[in-house]
């Protein structure tokens, strides 16, 4: 294990954590404000990636394709809100889980029918190809730096909106007591729409940004969705700050665990058994982390204020 490798893996972990944060932020907002559990959120991440594939291919420009993909993801998300989600806000969690589960089945298969089952990819934008030299001999792709940077920028924007604007204030009020906000004359339906649209955009953005570095395939949203759940639970449901911190922790623990667990176990067991145990342990690591966090703090690391 060299320092260079460690730095590269830490950056990879950060980048993974930022992606998770973009997905988890929308999920935790929708849950915190609307008390609505949306399993289809991962599908919106997947759609963002597929739309990026199509629009980048059509326009030949990454930035233009990204913008169009985001717009299309937003329109699709709003259509879903109008057709399905809107009728579920008043229902219990079981109905929400089932209906959005049905949506996942439909959309995963629909994507397979439209784009095919084979993994697709998006070419790296020309101005972000190449590498940055971290120290002598250690290179890191520019695009991944751009991803980390844009994720942090979106995080900062989100922080500004939630903490400093009127909409953000209503949002926070809605998260701690939605009926009261409604009683004070705020159009809660409109607020829900805004929150939902925003969450959808974030997930779509994460998917589109991930498209050049991950393979775009049906079901890619499911894994991310479950990891986003872990992030939300660790961070505290409804808390954006919690989601940010937890996403980085999960990203780092998962990436570093997968890279170094094997070497770590080699210190006190034989090579073959270290490889077997390492593979099992590193994919279970974040779930163990979640179990420990829950055992110590059932409400999560940084619970949203006003929720019990």
């Amino acid at each position, binding site marked *: 294990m060299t320092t260079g490798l460690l730095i590269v893996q830490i950056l990879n972990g950060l980048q993974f954590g930022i992606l998770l944060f973009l997905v988890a932020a929308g999920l935790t907002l929708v*849950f915190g404000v609307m*008390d609505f*559990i949306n399993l289809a959120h991962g599908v919106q991440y997947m759609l963002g990636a597929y739309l990026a594939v199509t629009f980048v291919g059509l326009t030949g420009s990454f930035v233009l394709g990204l913008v169009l993909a985001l717009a299309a993801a937003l329109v699709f998300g709003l259509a879903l809100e109008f057709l*399905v989600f809107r*009728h*579920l806000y008043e*229902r*219990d*969690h*079981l*109905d929400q*889980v*089932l*209906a959005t*589960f*049905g*949506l*996942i*089945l*439909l*959309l*995963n*298969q*629909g994507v*397979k*029918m439209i784009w095919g089952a084979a993994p697709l990819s998006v070419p790296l934008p020309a101005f972000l190809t190449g590498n940055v030299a971290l120290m002598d001999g250690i290179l890191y792709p520019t695009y991944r730096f751009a991803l980390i940077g844009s994720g942090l920028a979106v995080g900062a924007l989100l922080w500004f909106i939630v903490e400093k604007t009127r909409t953000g204030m209503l949002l926070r009020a809605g998260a701690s*007591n939605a009926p009261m906000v409604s009683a004070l004359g705020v159009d809660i339906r409109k607020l829900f729409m805004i929150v939902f649209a925003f969450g959808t955009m974030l997930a779509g953005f994460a998917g589109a940004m991930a498209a050049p570095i991950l393979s775009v395939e049906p079901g890619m949203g*499911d894994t991310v969705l*479950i990891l986003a*759940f*872990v992030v*939300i*639970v660790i961070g505290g*449901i409804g808390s954006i700050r919690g989601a940010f911190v937890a996403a980085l922790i999960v990203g780092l623990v998962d990436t570093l665990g997968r890279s170094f667990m094997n070497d770590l176990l080699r210190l006190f067991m034989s090579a073959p058994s270290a490889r*077997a145990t390492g*593979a*099992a342990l590193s*994919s*279970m690591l974040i*779930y*163990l982390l*979640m*179990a420990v966090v*829950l*055992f110590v703090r*059932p409400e999560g690391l940084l619970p949203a204020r006003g*929720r*019990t």
Partner: protein
Amino acid sequence: MSSATTTSEVSSVAPPRERAKLLLPAILFLLLALAPLAVTIGMPAGWLALLTRALIFAIAALSLDLILGVGGLVSFGHAAFLGIGAYVTGIMITEGRSEALVILPVILGVCALFGAITGAVCLRTRGVAFIMITLAFGQMVYFLAQALSAYGGDDGLTLYEKSTLLGFNPFANRTSFYYSVLIALAGAYLLVRGFVASRFGRVLRAARENPVRVSVTGFDVTKVRLVAYVISGMLAGLSGFFLANHTEFVSPAFMSWQRSGELIFMAVLGGVGSLHGAIIGAIAYLIAEDALSHLTEHWRVIFGPMIILFVLFTRGGIVGMLRKLGPRHG
């Protein structure tokens, strides 16, 4: 706020004490007992295999209904128990221990242990967090199975023989396998029904409606729920034993989170909290899946919207609809 939402999360179909509740299960089990006759009078033989599979999932859906419908706890990781049961079966048969009376106690023990440990963590949370955590534990077992490279890893494990029972081979013959599963299902049904009717079950139901009041009355709500969770997990492990013997193959896909979602849908499709509803739901689900998948390989495009429409427009599941059709009771 969150405790109030949890309590009303799952409402049962019917009040527990109703004479009509005996009629429907009795008809159901009678029909199931007679079903193999249909093959002798001309139904295709594959039909019995499908029905056997349906009954295996009925055991799992029934066990889920105990915590989901009766206890009001939406577990999204129930397939983990099914997978554990299947994997224990697969591994023990591979290692040359195919006697069911040896395998079953191990399954029940492992499932009880896993249920007790994860349940103790999960039950610290409520509502949506509970859903997410059970889901995450399910994923944990899924990845563990994927990493079991000695037993097939991601590709799964093929079984070259079935379990034996006291040296006999009741699972090798299609009809006797069907009846073995049916007997297990009937046993599980009676057990869960007795459990629900007992004092313990009443506390579990009361805790679904109002956990605060129940705990103030002096009951340990978490302990009651944990016992229900463990029993439910053990029964799901039992269905895993039959599933492994039925497919003669086990793979991590047995405990994918989609499978947990399907189990929830089976319980809800039949009507949550009624127990026999879960059995009807599982049978209806597997027959629908089979019919649709013969129709097109993209059957999920039809099935997904069906689930959504079902959730949006029906209440009480199939059992609820049957009750509306039948004569009114008292």
